[in-house]
């Protein structure tokens, strides 16, 4: 998953769980059945898990472009200047 996908997955999870909770509460109260509320909510949690937890392709719409290994060798990492620092600590 890319960064945009992670944010999307988290938002979808939060909103879906809240929506299912409200639907379950209202349905349970109107039907007078505590069991219906629990069943609807459990179904909602499972559905949300199926949609947001696995690494689906639609979460990867803005992929990160990692640098090719050949390119990386041509541009070596900058070196830190070591000598001046050592003199300072010895004193």
């Amino acid at each position, binding site marked *: 998953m890319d960064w945009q996908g992670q*944010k999307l997955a988290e938002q979808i999870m939060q909103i879906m769980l809240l929506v299912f909770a409200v639907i379950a509460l209202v349905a349970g109260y109107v039907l007078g059945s*505590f069991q219906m509320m629990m069943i609807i909510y459990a179904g909602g949690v499972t559905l949300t898990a199926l949609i947001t937890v696995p690494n689906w392709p639609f979460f990867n719409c803005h992929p990160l472009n990692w640098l090719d290994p050949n390119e990386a060798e041509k541009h070596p990492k900058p070196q830190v200047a070591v000598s001046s620092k050592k003199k300072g600590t010895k004193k």
Partner: protein
Amino acid sequence: MHSFGYRLNGLLTFSLTILAMMCAIASLSDNLNTPSPSAEIQIMNINWFQKQPQGNDEVSLTMNISADLQSLFTWNTKQLFIFVSAEYETPKNSLNQVSLWDAIIPAKEHAKFWIHTSNKYRFVDQGNNLRGKEFNLTLHWHVMPKTGKMFADKIVLTGYSFPEEYR
């Protein structure tokens, strides 16, 4: 949300937190219920009324208990625990409560009932004060919820009294 396990953990903990909030709201919804219960107890017979060897009075009675407690049930009710107690005053104690009979009502259909029974538990006084004594019979109930707060209330029925002499 960086990996499968991270997302799964986040989902599970959030769903459990929301479940706790749903149960709290369900319990609060019980306050919207306005019950209107009714009950009647008749004493059909005083079977016997004796003084025990230790000096305490004991009585056995047969009661006819009828009640309509259906309005106490809500969607969040697991069962109703009811009991009948006899209440009276003696010189030694300002209030005596003796539990005579109890029952568990598991569903709304069973909450409108009629039962002819002798006292399930022995009615023994602390002393020998019962001759000619006036007492109340109180039907108590505890509405036990599936989640949340338990409500308890009662109906007091007055006007009962013991015979003047032992039988």
